[in-house]
């Protein structure tokens, strides 16, 4: 996803000279063919400045992208994002890499399991968690065309392409259709657990890349009996919580328990440890739907 988004940015930058990229000293190998452009700056390690600088350039008419590891995009400079970008209604695109526990081996400082909670406190910030490179590019293009501030949280690079057809990221995108009365809604890169889930239980599965669209969830979910959400984020305050607030439907939420992670391991190890890998989720859904 990371390289797909970066390549899209570089492609658009050739036509749109107002587009400007700020890297918070991140992106080695990503921006190497772009980092001498007048449309790029790496101001160093200073996240408050990065965001304030982005706001200043946006106030002068630039479409600005601030790229960094997710904790340094939304958490460290939170008040700058709130005051300078969101309150001032500036069309800055925040791109955070290493969503969820992608960078789990790097430890607490480098993974981000509470960013949706934080981002969702800002009323005009569009939030995206794409699941594959196709969704990632579509999310970026939506944000680029928008006049609102946006936050795109992407995992890493090298994810499988899920979608072969054109997609609309403002709506749930079916990954698997079933005759089952139940549905599982996924937000972000946890979509790569789908095949393991389907080995255990058959149900409809959708990816929901955009958290903040005006989609009518009440009507959509009324067509299903049980609805489940799965995300690589704290279970309280993330996608499932926000979806519950958007409709009256009972939602069964799966996600990371809201507690600090001291366990050491990579993403797949921690998904298993915290019970959000496909096999465990499949078993849990199977139990609930049988009952």
């Amino acid at each position, binding site marked *: 996803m990371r390289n797909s988004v970066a390549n899209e940015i570089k492609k658009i930058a050739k036509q749109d000279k107002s587009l*400007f990229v700020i890297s918070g000293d991140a992106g080695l190998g990503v921006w190497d063919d772009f980092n001498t452009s007048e449309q790029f700056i790496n101001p160093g390690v*200073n996240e408050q400045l990065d965001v*304030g*600088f982005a706001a200043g*350039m946006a106030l*002068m008419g630039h479409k600005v992208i601030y790229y960094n590891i997710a904790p340094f995009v939304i958490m460290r400079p939170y*008040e700058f994002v709130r005051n*300078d970008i969101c*309150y*001032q209604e500036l069309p800055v695109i925040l791109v955070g890499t290493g969503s969820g526990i992608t960078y789990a081996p790097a430890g607490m400082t480098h993974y981000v399991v509470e960013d949706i909670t934080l981002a969702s406190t800002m009323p005009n910030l569009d939030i995206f968690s794409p699941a594959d490179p196709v969704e990632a590019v579509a999310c970026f293009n939506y944000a680029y065309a928008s006049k609102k501030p946006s936050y795109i949280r992407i995992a890493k690079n090298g994810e499988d392409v899920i979608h072969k057809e054109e997609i609309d990221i403002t709506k749930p995108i079916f990954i698997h259709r079933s005759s089952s009365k139940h549905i599982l809604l996924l937000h972000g890169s946890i979509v790569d657990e789908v095949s393991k889930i389907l080995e255990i239980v058959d149900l409809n599965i959708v990816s929901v890349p955009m958290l903040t669209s005006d989609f009518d969830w009440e009507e959509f979910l009324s067509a299903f009996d049980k609805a489940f959400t799965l995300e690589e984020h704290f279970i309280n305050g993330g996608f499932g919580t926000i979806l519950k607030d958007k409709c009256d439907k009972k939602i069964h939420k799966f996600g990371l328990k809201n507690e600090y992670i001291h366990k050491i391991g990579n993403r797949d190890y921690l998904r298993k440890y915290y019970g959000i890998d496909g096999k465990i989720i499949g078993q849990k859904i199977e139990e609930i739907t049988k009952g």
Partner: protein
Amino acid sequence: MKETATNIRRNILHIANLALSPHIGSALSCSDILSVLYFKILQLDDYENRDIFILSKAHSAMALYATLHERGLLSKEDMEGYYQNGGTLPAHTDRLTNPYIEISAGSLGHGLPIATGMAHALKLKKSKREVYVLMGDGESQEGSVWEAAMLAPKLELDNLTVFIDRNDLQGYGRASELLSYEPIDKKFEAFNWEVLRVDGHNHQAIKNAVDFKTDKPKMIICDTIKGKGVSFMEDELIWHYFIVTDDVKERAVRELEESSDEK
């Protein structure tokens, strides 16, 4: 010019009294700097190509509102809606309230990073527009100020001028005692800024400092007196908070007018 500054101070006292809001000392402290900027420096006639002024120490917003009104860019009605229920202008700035209020501010340490981005954008466009920022001295304790201070010279932002309203009184005491920023001139010089130091109530000195040519970003340290112009407010910490009652306003305006008559 002195009459202009007196009028601005009178406007400040007027709206502070209507609102019964704090920060009168901070607003009076920077009134001369704003007078010079808005009446001698800023190009504001061609809006699309206007110079930019950012009030980073936005708790002095009354001074900006009073100056914009004096300059004919803010109506009396809007100025008097400051800090009122259902009013027009907040205690700290909101850029959506007036086209000449460039940023929403109030949390210290935001103005310089934003101004750095603006100045860089203007340099890329080869624009002749200038960017000016007014910071408080206590504000220089914010880390984000130094982040931007490192970057601006690297980007050769000779279109960026920063004023520090150096009145040496912050929220809870003297900045020089709480966490001293001094020697602030040497610190900014070490960061490769052009640094000038002036009497922040001397209009000609401020103007001369702005006119000084340099190819570096410029820092003008303005030595000022908090509460300047009203003797019983001058250099008194408590006027960071005290409100301007009818009695206080009457005494303060009388002083301003007497002082003006003497000149």
